């Protein structure tokens, strides 16, 4: 029986938004807390404690996930994208601009997660219909907007016409 190490802490190396970080982290540390507290990337947020709200959504190795249900040690060696990667040198991405144009955010707390979910959608489906947009953000709770303006913003960002 090959013995493998069982560790309560280890050094993880991650690429987040193009920057490599190396940190010692407890095995129990959630990825969302690693990003926010250890790496000072506070754009991703915590809104619940049962994996329902999606405010913590990030993209890990190209896959949209809720970072509150991943341990930091699970992403050792991974490439992570967070909301901080979307704008380029203070120039908002078309998706971010569309969110502003269509008033798809009010308090802004769910917004980073929403943007990541929308980003993941548009990569896979550049011209989604209304139902596909809703399905794509089904895992992101918003309490301010009622989602209707978010649907419009994502549709507009995809270059499709939006009924005003």
């Amino acid at each position: 029986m090959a013995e493998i190490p069982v560790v309560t802490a280890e050094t993880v190396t991650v690429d987040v938004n193009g920057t490599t970080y190396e940190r010692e982290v407890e095995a129990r540390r959630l990825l969302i807390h690693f990003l926010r507290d250890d790496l000072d990337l506070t754009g991703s947020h915590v809104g619940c404690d049962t994996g329902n709200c999606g405010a913590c959504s990030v993209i890990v190795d190209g896959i949209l996930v809720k970072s509150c249900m991943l341990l930091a040690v699970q992403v050792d060696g991974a490439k992570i994208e967070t909301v901080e990667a979307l704008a380029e040198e203070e120039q908002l991405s078309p998706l971010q601009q569309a969110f502003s144009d269509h008033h798809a955010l009010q308090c802004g707390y769910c917004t980073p997660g929403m943007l990541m979910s929308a980003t993941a959608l548009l990569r896979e489906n550049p011209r989604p219909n209304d139902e596909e947009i809703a399905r794509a953000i089904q895992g992101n709770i918003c309490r301010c907007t009622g989602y209707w303006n978010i649907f419009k913003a994502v549709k507009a960002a995809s270059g499709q016409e939006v009924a005003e």
Partner: protein
Amino acid sequence: MTEPTTVAEPIVVEEAETKRGYAGQSVPRKEDKRLVQGEGVFFDDVKRHNMGYVHFVRSPYAHAKLRSVDVSKALEHPGVLGTLTGDEVALLTDPFFQISSPPGAHLRDFCLAVGKARFVGEPVAAVVATTRETARDASELVEVDYEPLPALTDAREALADDAPLLHDEAGTNLTWEGVYEWGDLDAAFAEADRVVKISELHFDRFNSTPLECNGALVEFNRGTGQWTIITNNQFPGFAAIMMGPAMRVGLDKLRFVTQDIGGGFGNKITSHPQLVACCLLARKLNRPVQWTEWRTDFHLSMSHGNERWFQDTEVAVKEDGTLLGFRTTALDDAGAWLRYEPLGGVIWAQVTPGMYRWRHIRLDFKQVTTNKAPVSPNRGYSRMQHLWFTERVIDIVAQELGLDPVEVRKRNYIRAEDMPYETPNGCVYDSGDYAKMLDLALELVGHGGLEEKRADAESRGKLLGVGIGSTLDSGTNNFGQSRLINPELQFSGNNEVATVKLDIFGEIVVTLGTTPQGQSHETTAAQVVADILGCSVDDVNVRAGHDSYWNSHAGFSGTYASQFAVTGLGAVKGATDMLAVEMKKLASVVLGCTPDDIELAEGFARMRENHEAALPFMALGAIINANNAGLPEDLDVTLNCRYVYRPPFQPPDVERKFGNLTLTYAAQVHVAVVEVDPETGVYEIVDYAAVDDCGKRINPQVVEGQVMGATAQAIGAATHETFTYDEDGNLLTPNFYDYHVPHALDMPPLKTGNIESPSPFTSMGTKGMGEGGGAGIHAVCAALQDALRPRGNPIVYDSSNPYHRVWELLSDPESSRQRVTVESR
């Protein structure tokens, strides 16, 4: 029947005063750039060197004596920095001020449970450690010896002889009662053709669950004795008034700093107990202390909306559906503590008659304590419950008398020509045209084709229903209404503050006393300033958030109760008007003319008759700040203006419980169309229209955003969102798993419309809006009742209608019908 008597004089706004400019445009939001980049600063984003993380030990019992709290093992755990217990708190602080008159006045409320725990989730001790996880671990080592007591979980049993007593000092669970009566009930019931009696209606307990929970990072400055509280509390004025005396310090020792807040909806007003605990710990441990409220903590303990039973309602009505009056008992379940209560016991009276012209009203408001989370403001605070009640009454009366609910509403709505309208208790509805809004909403859902839609639904095995929910959003409180709760209180009126300055390089800088949580204050304030100063919104820099160090605040500062468009923008307008006067004065001195010759336009102060004679703002700023030799001695110009907006209120008449309680009345009329699956009770909202009127809209997109958000929250409250307790006082919906809020796929199609009835009482014709008044709840309840008519005419009696309740109405309509009797006279 008596006609309304005196009505406040409206402010006349001259045509020439209104300029075309930014007001009325959907100007892009200044807040967005940082928020879409994840660069907002929410309290949990802030770090301080050496900060300790707090975890609160919370009671697992709904009602229990605390025989002992032993933190010794927790203190030994590596990484633990310190603790706080109820015994310490009872020595270091005084109980929080109680708004209530006796017996509620006798409650002894501290920042941690002292002697007894009174609801599941009540903080009993606090542990601070070097990491979040360590604090959580160590909290399990705190040993609390609980002696469980019977729990009181139903307000209707609170007054029974054998009911568990929550607060010995009060001697009763009935902590506040007020009887309100206006008009002539006896005459009304004598004149009635029918009396509709409804034994019991229930407005359920829920709240708005802002995505960001409460929290703070608290630092203590030993040298000055001042705490800096970086938090998301949305009413720092109230928090300070509560915390200062409790902590035995002056209010200037409490500096509140907020920037971005992830939603408030009223649920971030009563975090002061936890803030006090953090303050004590920061001082005790000589390091910053950080508290993050987790979702479960929030659901268990924070700011549940008022749960209210309407008992023994009697409605006097004429054969043709004219409503004469009603009497009812409103039994309000306040939970374990009165933290902002019993203000809910009077705030409903801002909308006593709802949107209707009945004049004879009696309401016996009884508020009781129970072993549940304390109630405090939730979007639509206390008015929503009452307006739901009036809408239920309308629909039930219409159904029982065989009348069309549209016609009954139109017959009884206060009419546009009645405005300003004085209600039976002296509130003044400023303006509005409810019938027009109803027509618009009905048109938006194609009400004309209703019968065809019903037939189509039936062919698919579904029951279709249409329901109307009309509601008011009363805004800008007169805090004098608190004297109707407790005549000893010294609160009245309202205020908000803004400062506007023109800086040395011509920058315009605005500070607000408000604490926005998504309401776009930076943007709308800039619109108002830019219009007055004749510059671009981009030239106006509105500081993000609130900082009491800026001294841009007053006793009532904060963002709550649908008032920013009146109080906040009123303060901004006032300060900017002052600044404009000063700019013109200064320019007139420099240009050698009179101030009346000067206009502010295109970023210049220039002579109206000669645009060449112009000073850019930078010149004005530079003169006053850096180059002021030679100016006339009596020139009263600082270019740094502070204005306190004060709405025109009188203290109300406490004896008659009469007087104007709110300055403005926005309105919303919603229509919901539902399809019910009679096999299961599952239903879907298949169409929805929301029509709003908030007077002059400074930024239409912002207003519409608020209407949409309120609609979504109301839909959630009508369907799955409830804080339900079992009989032992355990909350069955402590997180988003069981407390289901609407997600994207749950949203119905939405059609919106609006009209603008400017308020005659505000400087810009705006009305506060944002809370909404729960129209969606009223509409969905009405739609369900309409859908189920063919199945025995059940009565929708609860604001919350998850599938199991609809099923109950389908399988046993008779039980619900037993709540209603109609007597003929």
